[in-house]
């Protein structure tokens, strides 16, 4: 479904990604795990076209989407739930969801998606008329995920959705990610919370210094010596 082919990218004159290749098949939960500054966010930014790849290709459903305008990528069926939520702070929760449903395709399914989201996040529905900035961190993360779902994506990208949340909320977030995947949306999630992410993922990649150093079945990675030493503290 999604394929990155030897992608190089960076900011200004620094190169961050030194040829990243990876693949996500339809129906999977795939994760990219790695430490702070390894290049996880940068990888997702390339996929969603917030930044340009210097070289290499991004293919989605057989189509080359490298260098496509960011808003076109959303229309193509990829939605990202960005790092640190990035809600529209001075808009209400409902308005944030309406923004999620911006593309023509999404707007046609607005009602049913809203019902689905309300079913999944009853707490969010209680806060519809509140400004997004007035919510707690956990609630904001739920709104960010709900907003992403409103776009009716076929592939959903999550950038560290568990970051900065209390353990109980972290568990809720991972449950939601699993529910979204069970609903038929393909998921690519990047995380530093290696253990819990590998637990819900089908496959995983390990990224270090802008390079994929390892990849395989999630269970296999959990058992891997390097992964256990470097990321699981075992």
């Amino acid at each position, binding site marked *: 479904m999604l394929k990155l082919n030897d992608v190089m990218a960076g900011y200004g004159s620094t190169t961050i990604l030194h040829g990243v290749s990876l693949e996500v098949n339809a129906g999977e939960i795939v994760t990219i795990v790695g430490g702070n500054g390894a290049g996880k966010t940068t990888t997702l930014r390339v996929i*969603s076209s*917030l930044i340009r790849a210097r070289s290499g290709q991004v293919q989605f459903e057989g189509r080359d989407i490298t260098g496509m*305008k*960011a*808003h076109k990528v*959303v*229309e193509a069926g990829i*939605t*990202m739930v*960005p790092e640190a939520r*990035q*809600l*529209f*702070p*001075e*808009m209400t929760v409902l*308005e944030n969801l*309406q*923004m*999620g449903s*911006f*593309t023509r395709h*999404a*707007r046609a399914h607005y009602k049913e998606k809203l019902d689905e989201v309300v079913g999944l996040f009853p707490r969010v529905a209680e806060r519809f008329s509140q400004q997004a900035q007035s919510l707690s961190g956990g609630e904001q993360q739920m709104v960010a995920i709900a*907003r992403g779902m409103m*776009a009716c994506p076929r592939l959903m990208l999550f950038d560290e959705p568990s970051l900065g949340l209390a353990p109980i909320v972290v568990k809720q977030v991972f449950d939601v990610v699993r529910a979204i995947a069970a609903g038929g949306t393909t998921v690519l999630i990047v995380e530093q919370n290696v253990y819990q992410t590998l637990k819900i993922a089908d496959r995983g990649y390990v990224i270090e210094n802008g390079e994929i150093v390892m990849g395989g079945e999630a269970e296999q990675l959990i058992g891997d010596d390097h992964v256990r030493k470097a990321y699981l503290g075992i």
Partner: protein
Amino acid sequence: MDLVFTNIVNGLMLGALYAIVSVGLTLVFGIVKVINFAHGEFLMVSMFLVYLVTTFFGVHPYFSLILVLPAAFVMGMLVQRLLIEPLQNSDEHIMIFATVGLSIALINLMLLIFGPDILNTPSSGLRQPVNIGSGMFLTGQLNILICAIAVVGGIHLFLTRTQLGRSIRATGQNRSAAQLMGINVSWIYMVTFGIGAACVGLAAVLIAPLYPTSPEVGQYFVLLSFVVVVMGGLGSITGALVASMIIGLVDAFAGFYLGANVKDLVVFGIFLLVLIFRPQGLFGGARNLSHVS
């Protein structure tokens, strides 16, 4: 008592004029994060257009709105697309040079075409005085007040009730998140600039029958609009409206009781006081206006 009433009415009408001009300026700043120093020249060019349309077709100046409003809108869009967007990722000082440069270019272009003389758009009865008690104002001024209320209310409704309006606000609050929603932010910026320019297009139609038109007229009207926008809180539409009315009233009262020479001193004195005690302006939040990378 009647004098007080007259001054209040005049102040509100002057404030209404500043409101229409300032709302456009503050909207562009709040969303595109650009201070458009050519905003006054948009007004000036629009006033020349009003003059040309009115005299060429021999119509009532308000009829020129049909042409001037779309023309101003397109002018704003083109400036955003051709001048601002290519510079959007560069240093903010460059943006200042760009809009100041545009302002100077437009003034000189108009000097070249029309010369330094003053042009008078036919007033078509809009300078007719209206008397309320012993208070007096012009028909055209009353229309400005009505339009200001309509424009501020209309823009507010547009920004909160329509999908395009909401996406404009979303883009202003978080540009990259807006892109992730599928919003074409470069289009949103063009539309926003267009609306900002259309505000002065409307202002031009209202002002031209009452004031003479010349290449410098934009500077005259817009200097106080910058004061209004900063005083109200950069990017705040409510702030622009309230500050416009304050400045309008202060201008009227100080002008009447202290004389035209002293009034600017009072206006800028109040402006400085606001800045000292509320640097973010009356309605400016602690909102982070920087682009989120």
